[in-house]
């Protein structure tokens, strides 16, 4: 039997030394040292993780529970000639995933900030090449036409799509009522300009107010629609209350929101996105899988609510109805 040898440079602590080492105040206390490391670990991991979360995470509105409970998911009425039978995008997703740069550039911004947009009272000015220029209250304007439902596909230039059950009236009915003169060739739409109601306009992201336009024959096409409702309810602010356009064969940005002015013009209007990036966004903006955006392909899209992608259809699936409008035009040039 040999006595355990204590190395000379690491003598076993005496009981007295050990007692003093473990005393609560001693900075060399191993328990204290452990706690210190644990605290440092937690703070570092928390700070780095939290900082990264803060910089990158933008949770969207939860959607799983909204999917099942939507009464409009299966329309009760018989489908009309312009409706799609494809599954309708649930209300929750259609109203929390929006591009409405006047209310912020993030998809979740419009739903968050739409409270400042006041859709009543609201007037729409109608002028230009019309026999009956006037300023009309939105409720009066709405009362001119019987409201109807339209279930349209909507395709965003960013590569996602939805199916929207609009409520409204055909644009053609409005234009005929205004009695265009023989000089009228185009229709120009102007959105509300009011940074108090649309706080995103405080940033010069685009040239405000937002302006869009259609050729007169496009505007008179029975698919071109003015929407005042969605999912059988009044149009929410983030979706362009109280009056917006829906041209389903064109990329979504053509369907201008929160319209305050409709002008019939002789010359092609200067539209907002075409001015902001003329190489990327043309006046026509017809959905076309064969003409890529300069920075990304338009061949496929994701239907919101699906994980995979589907092939994009020419004119967003409305080619039978609208291809005739563009006969003889080079769609690569007039993109």
């Amino acid at each position, binding site marked *: 039997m040999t006595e355990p040898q204590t190395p000379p440079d690491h003598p076993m602590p005496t009981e007295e030394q050990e007692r003093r080492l473990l005393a609560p105040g001693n900075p060399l206390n191993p328990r204290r040292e452990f706690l210190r490391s644990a605290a440092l670990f937690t703070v570092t991991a928390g700070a780095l993780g939290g900082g990264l979360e803060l910089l990158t995470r933008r949770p*969207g509105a939860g959607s799983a529970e909204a999917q099942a409970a939507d009464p409009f998911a299966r329309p009760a009425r018989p489908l009309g000639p312009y409706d799609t039978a494809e599954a309708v995008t649930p209300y929750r997703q259609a109203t929390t995933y929006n591009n409405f740069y006047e209310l912020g550039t993030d998809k979740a911004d419009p739903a968050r900030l739409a409270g400042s947009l006041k859709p009543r009272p609201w007037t729409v000015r109608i002028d230009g090449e019309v026999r009956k220029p006037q300023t009309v209250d939105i409720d009066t304007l709405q009362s001119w036409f019987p409201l109807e439902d339209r279930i349209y596909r909507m395709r965003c230039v960013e590569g996602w799509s939805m199916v929207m059950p609009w409520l409204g009236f055909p644009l053609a009915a409005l234009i005929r009522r205004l009695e265009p003169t023989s000089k009228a060739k185009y229709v120009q739409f102007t959105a509300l300009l009011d940074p108090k109601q649309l706080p995103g306009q405080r940033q010069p992201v685009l040239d405000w107010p937002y302006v869009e336009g259609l050729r007169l024959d496009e505007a008179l096409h029975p698919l071109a629609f003015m929407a005042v409702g969605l999912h059988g309810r009044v149009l929410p602010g983030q979706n362009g209350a109280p009056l917006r356009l829906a041209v389903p064969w064109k990329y979504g940005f053509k369907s201008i929101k929160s319209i305050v002015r409709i002008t019939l013009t002789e010359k092609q209007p200067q539209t907002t996105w075409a001015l902001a990036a003329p190489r990327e966004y043309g006046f026509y903006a017809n959905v076309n899988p064969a003409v890529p955006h300069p920075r990304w392909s338009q061949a496929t899209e994701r239907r919101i609510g699906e994980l995979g992608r589907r092939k994009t259809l020419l004119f967003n699936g409305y080619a039978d109805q609208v291809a005739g409008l563009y006969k003889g035009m080079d769609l690569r040039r007039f993109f």
Partner: protein
Amino acid sequence: MPAVVTGGLLPAAVLVLDALSGALGANPIQRATQQTGLLSLVLLLLSLACTPLRRWTGWTWPARVRKSLGLLAFGYAALHFLIYLFDHGFAPAQMAEDVLERPFITVGFTALLLLVPLALTSTPRAVRRLGFARWTQLHRLVYVSVWLATLHYYWGVKKDHTPPLIAAGVLALLFLARWWRRPQRHAAWPLPTDRGSASP
């Protein structure tokens, strides 16, 4: 530093939780793509901040966490790419077309490819095998990669370019900081290369 690795992996855990709970919103794949991409870029910037921070403050901990930050950045970039592949149905033909024809994708893909050799040679053994001088030279690829990643970010945004421009600004500052203290490096913080050339 295990704390840095744990902290760096927290966002990935939150991302998985968000994906499972539906908190990623209406377009979860797009959200996941954007989040992993941005995480990767932020971590790359943090890893690039280590050397100037060490030189300016004299602290040594930045040098110890640099590798972890770089590897985390690579991990998120790889995840970002995997989600893109999943998004496009793992179709190699379409991916090849994207990489060849769309500068936006070309640039992002190149940024990722440039990080691969850096991740592979992140072990001390690789440093020894390559020799420190060559290893350092190889790892300068990160400078190219991070600029390409920033350009990729810029091109991926439809209109509001503020966030990518902030990233570019931070990056420019980091490069300036590197240049600023350049002459001091040899005096105050001799690197192994300098020592190597001085030894017989």
